[in-house]
């Protein structure tokens, strides 16, 4: 869900993120795309038993989100063109979903390859926006199954692209969430290990907080949005034994004002009031991560790509001071998030074969390895054990990042947030309640009661419940 921008000052990050919210396309063809490509660069791809040049001369429009992974992929676009003879118009957008929706809703096929938020896939499949990829995966002239090895893609994340037993998108940049904490500050406060429960976390955050020195024990995303506060709230609420529905997907009766959800939200409100920075109600991922990188926030719960970001000297003043752990547990268990940026094909594209070659190429193991200079995050099970990946990943957050990521990937649940076509409206309404509670405009109980009433009406209109 994050659109991680790695470089720049706090102001630049803020400005970049906000500009991104209004869908500012980035510069056109990247400098890297013009770099020379040698025969040895092509070798890993030419071992695939398909004709990469079968769509030579075609032109593809590719839309991706503005994040470090996109920059990593841009480095190798010239290689793709050299390999396939397919030229690319590769654009990155601050809000790629918005940009794509405007295109898709207008019935346009002008964007051929779509980078897709995994939570909107059920919506887009229902609206016939996405081309099923199952036939392309099965077509031997388009896919070499041994070379592509789709079974190697992290299975829980591959499941995010499946609707009605058909694959519509493949994970390209998976995410799970971790707890990040300042090892130095926690140690100074006498805390020997990262918190394993939410109660413990609240106590630790209070110990570390020093308002006089503009230091806050915890920062959490509270700004509204199904992809903002709800994304983090879900880890907390589910650990408290709460959730979204009575029994998803068989019974979509909402339970937003259940005692467990009220307790979880109250925990969030209390801990932010006691140990959170000022301005919390409007803090999104950009603000929280920047505050952490600048040394104002001593712990947070966020997606795992924050780990490398906090260790980037061009963005962070707190390099080398961070540890990472699996998110805290509760009576409901341990709930790291699960999300992925996926690659799919516009159902109205007139270059679907060429688009599939791009998706196959971008999701392949050699491309994942070639992005290592910018990000160790990969969609492949095998690569999480690859020595080259381990050499990079094992250094992050004082060596705590990799084991925490492995544990989280193993227990992450595809239904962490319920995936159904009405999710965005449902999640956004819940997010309003969470933000209102954090802002103090309403009590937790009143905010969740009101959300429960509204989503019940929405679900009735959508025929999800009687």
């Amino acid at each position, binding site marked *: 869900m994050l659109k991680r921008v790695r470089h720049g000052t*706090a*102001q630049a990050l*803020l*400005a970049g993120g*906000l*500009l991104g*919210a*209004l869908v500012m396309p980035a510069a056109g063809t990247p400098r890297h795309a013009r770099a020379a490509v040698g025969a040895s660069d092509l070798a890993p791809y030419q071992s695939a038993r398909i004709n990469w040049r079968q769509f030579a001369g075609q032109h593809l429009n590719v839309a991706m989100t503005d994040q470090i992974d996109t920059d990593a992929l841009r480095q190798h676009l010239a290689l793709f063109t050299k390999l396939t003879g397919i030229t690319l118009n590769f654009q990155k957008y601050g809000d790629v979903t*918005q940009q794509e*929706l*405007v295109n898709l*809703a207008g019935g346009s096929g002008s964007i051929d390859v779509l980078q897709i938020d995994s939570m909107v896939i059920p*919506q887009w499949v*229902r*609206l*016939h926006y996405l081309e099923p990829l199952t036939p392309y995966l099965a077509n031997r002239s388009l896919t070499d199954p041994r070379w592509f090895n789709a079974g190697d893609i992290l299975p829980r994340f591959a499941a995010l692209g499946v609707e009605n037993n058909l694959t519509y998108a493949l994970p390209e940049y998976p995410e799970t969430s971790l707890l990040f904490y300042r090892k130095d500050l926690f140690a100074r406060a006498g805390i020997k290990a990262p918190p394993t429960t939410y109660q413990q976390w609240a106590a630790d955050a209070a110990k570390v907080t020093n308002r006089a020195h*503009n230091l806050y024990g915890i920062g959490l995303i509270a*700004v*509204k*949005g199904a992809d903002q506060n709800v994304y983090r709230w879900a880890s907390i609420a589910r650990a408290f034994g709460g959730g979204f529905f009575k029994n998803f997907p068989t019974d979509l009766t909402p339970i937003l004002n259940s005692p467990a959800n009220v307790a979880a939200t109250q925990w969030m409100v209390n801990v932010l009031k006691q140990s959170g*920075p*000022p*301005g*919390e*109600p*409007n803090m999104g991922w950009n603000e929280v991560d920047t*505050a952490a990188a600048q040394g*104002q926030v001593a712990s947070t719960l966020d997606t795992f790509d924050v780990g490398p970001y906090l260790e980037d000297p061009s963005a962070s003043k707190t390099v080398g001071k961070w540890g990472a752990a699996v998110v805290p547990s509760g009576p409901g268990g341990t709930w790291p998030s699960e999300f992925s940026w996926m690659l799919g094909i516009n159902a109205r594209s007139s270059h679907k074969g060429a688009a599939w070659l791009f998706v196959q190429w971008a999701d392949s193991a050699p491309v994942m390895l070639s992005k290592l200079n910018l990000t160790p995050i990969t969609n492949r099970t095998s690569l999480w054990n690859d020595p080259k990946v381990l050499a990079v990943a094992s250094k992050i957050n004082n060596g705590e990042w990799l084991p925490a990521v492995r544990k989280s990937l193993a227990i992450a649940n595809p239904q962490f947030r319920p995936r159904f*076509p*009405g999710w*965005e*409206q449902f999640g*956004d309404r819940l997010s*309003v*309640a969470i*933000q*209102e509670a*954090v*802002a*103090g*405009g*309403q009590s937790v109980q009143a*905010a969740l009661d009101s959300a429960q009433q*509204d989503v019940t009406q929405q679900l009735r*209109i*959508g*025929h999800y419940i009687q």
Partner: protein
Amino acid sequence: MKSSRTEVAAKRGGLLGILRSERVLPGAMLAPAVIVLATLTLFPIGYVIYLSLTDLGVNSPDGAFVGLDNYRLIQSDPAFWESLRVTGAFTLAAVGVEFLLGFAIAILLNRRLRGLGLVRTLLLLPMVMTPVIVGITWRMLYSPTYGLVDYFLGRLGVGQPDWLGDSRLALWSVVTVDVWQWTPFMFLLLTAGLHSLPSEPYEAARVDGAGRLATFRLLTLPLLRNVIIVALIFRAIDAFDTFDIIWVLTNGGPGTSTQTLTIYSYFQTFRWLNYGYGAALSIVMLLLVAVFCVIMVALMHREPA
């Protein structure tokens, strides 16, 4: 008899003759503009009206015709009424303050002084800035951690409120930004109005011994009436439709405290993909603006009492 003249012209000059005839020529001259207008304006509006009569969206991918159902849903949608209330409050407050400030500055600077040209130019700068940049700048200024507003308030020993994060303050903080950016527009229009006023009535008033206040009330205000109405119409329509500044500053939050109709309509259409319902919301907004304009134009044409 014009038709017979057209026929005669047609007989004499063929196609060119028809085009040159009095009846056809104006139509031919207007046709390109009408075609462009119809393509760019009427067709989209017509399509939005059609969409608003369907339930096209994520719950109905094929979009069945539902008549006025979307409009009935709007009537019973509490989020619509709340957004309408926020929109009304935002528009009234922003346009009201902009008018009063703009008018005051226009009168203050309506004199011959050295350097006034530079002052006027500087005053217009906020208006030429992109609203997104204005939003980003003010978001930084309002920031409770590194914003200048709270920094100076803190130095003065006043409280340091969370301008955009407090539900009670957020709307007024957004109004302030709109006022900062658009007061110069009011100033510009009203200054132009003041410069166009005839000097004779003022000379007569001076001869009659009228004071400044009486001159302003009995001369300036009535003479500027139409300019004021036009300025209010322009700004009110623009404020009613404001999206960018609010979106950048608050996303319509905290909660729904700054969620105007445009933002609600955006959520319905482009985030929740309820295209039919979103289209109906747009039509309702169009009607509200149209009614407002009709009232204001009628007011403009009414003879002053």
